[in-house]
C-alpha cells in the first residue's frame, strides 16, 4: 500500500509543469489513474521507439511484438511509480523497454549460444543503423561520434552489452578478455560517453 508519502506539508498548490518535455509526463500521470485515452496517445507517440529498440535486440518479429506488449502493459500497471524528478517519461519507458528486451533475450538460451558465435562478426555494425528521420539521424550521429572517442575495447563491450543484450561474462567470453577488465572498460567507456553526450543529473 502507499506508505511512502513524503511528510511534506506544503502540498496544496497544484503541480504546474510548463516545460516542453512534460507532455509525455502528463500523459503518464493520466495513465496512472486509468485514463485509456491518454494511454492510447502515449502509445502512438512512443511505441515506434520502443518497438525499434526491442526489435534491435530480439530481431524476431513476433517475439518483439510480444515483448512490446509486455512493456506497454507494464507502463499501464506501474505508471504511478514513474517519478518525474528522476528523469523524463521517455527515459523511464526506454529503460524499462531495454530491461524487458534483455530479459527476453536471455530467456532463450539456445539462440543465445548461436548468437555468441555469430555476434563477433556483427559487433562493429551493431549501432550502425541507418535511419530516416532527421531527429533520429541527429541522435544517431551524435552517438556515433561519441562512440568514436572510445577505445576499441570500450566500444565493443558497450555495443555488445546494450545492442546485443549480452552479460558481462558473455562479453568476456566473446572478446577473450577477463571479466574484471570488461567491467572496468564498460564503466570507463560509459563515463566517457556521458561526458561526450553531455549527460548530467
Amino acid at each position: 500500500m502507499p506508505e511512502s508519502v513524503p511528510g511534506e506539508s506544503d502540498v496544496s498548490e497544484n503541480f504546474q509543469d510548463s516545460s516542453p518535455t512534460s507532455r509525455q509526463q502528463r500523459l503518464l500521470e493520466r495513465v496512472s489513474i486509468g485514463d485509456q485515452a491518454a494511454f492510447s496517445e502515449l502509445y502512438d507517440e512512443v511505441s515506434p521507439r520502443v518497438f525499434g529498440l526491442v526489435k534491435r535486440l530480439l530481431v524476431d518479429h513476433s517475439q518483439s511484438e510480444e515483448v512490446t506488449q509486455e512493456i506497454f502493459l507494464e507502463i499501464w500497471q506501474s505508471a504511478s511509480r514513474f517519478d518525474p524528478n528522476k528523469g523524463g517519461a521517455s527515459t523511464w519507458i526506454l529503460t524499462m523497454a531495454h530491461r524487458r528486451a534483455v530479459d527476453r533475450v536471455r530467456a532463450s538460451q539456445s539462440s543465445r549460444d548461436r548468437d555468441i558465435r555469430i555476434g563477433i562478426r556483427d559487433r562493429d555494425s551493431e549501432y550502425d543503423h541507418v535511419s530516416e528521420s532527421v531527429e533520429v539521424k541527429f541522435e544517431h550521429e551524435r552517438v556515433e561520434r561519441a562512440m568514436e572517442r572510445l577505445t576499441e575495447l570500450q566500444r565493443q563491450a558497450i555495443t555488445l552489452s546494450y545492442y546485443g543484450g549480452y552479460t558481462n561474462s558473455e562479453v568476456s567470453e566473446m572478446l577473450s578478455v577477463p571479466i574484471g577488465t570488461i567491467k572496468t572498460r564498460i564503466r570507463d567507456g560509459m563515463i566517457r560517453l556521458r561526458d561526450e553526450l553531455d549527460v548530467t543529473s
Partner: protein
Amino acid sequence: MTAAKDFSILSGSYALHALGPEERAEFEQHLRESALQETEQTRNEVTELSDTAVLLGLAIAPVTPSPALKVGIMAKLSSTPQLPPGSVSSNQSADATSRRPLDDAAPGPAERKARAAWFLRPVTALACAAAAVALIIGGGVIVNNVSVDSFEQAQADQLAAISAADDAQRRVSPIEGGGTATLVWSNELGTSALVVAGIASLPADRSYQLWYIDAGDGVARPAGIFSTAATGVGSRVLDGSMGAGDAVGLTVEPAGGSATPSTSPIVVIESA
C-alpha cells in the same frame, strides 16, 4: 554489507543491464543499504549512466508496430490492474534500475514540491482505493483474487500472439443482460480470445462457458470455462482450434461446465 568489495566498477554494466541476476541483486542491495559517502557517488553515477544508455537507445531507428498490436494491448487494459503509487517492491517494475537509488537522497526544493504534488493528488488517492483490489505484496501480483499463475501467463502470451498475428481481427457485440464482448481472432493461428466487460457476476454454482460453433454443421464444441472478476471484466483464450468462419458463443452452465450447451447463448460472435 561487505565493505571490502568495490561495487563502483559495476555502475556501467548495471546501467546497460549487463550484470547477471545475482550480481545485479547484490548491487541493488548495496545501493539501497550502504550509507558510505562513496555509495552516494555511485548512485549518482548509475543515474547518469542509465540516462546515457537511453541515448544509445534513441540512436536506433524507430519501427512502427502493426496496428493489431495496439488493438490487443488496448483490449487488455481494463483487465490489467494498476499499481497504487508509492509502495516499494523490488521486482515488479522498471525502476529497479536507475530510479530507486536516489530515493534516499535529500531532495531539493523543486524536487520536494514536485514529489509532494505527485504523490498527493486527490484523484490519485481515489485511484489507490480502487486499485487496492489489486494488492501488491512482496512482488506477488494478486489480480481479482486470482494470482497471476502459469495459466494466466500462458493466456496472456496467447492473447498477445493472436493480437500480434498479421491477420488478427476483432468484432464487438453486446451481451444479453448487459456488457459487451469482443472477439479477437486469427485464422492463420486458428485461435481466438473473448474479452468481456460489464458482464453480470454469477452465483457460485454457475460458470460462463465458451463454445466454438462450427461454421459447417453448427455443432457447439466446448472451449473452456470463463471466470470473470467481480468487476465484470475478463478475457479468455479459447481451448481447441478455430476453423475459418466458426462462431464463438458464451453460455451460462452449471459450475464446471457442460459437454453440450444447456442454455441458449448470451452472446454469439461470428468470425469472418
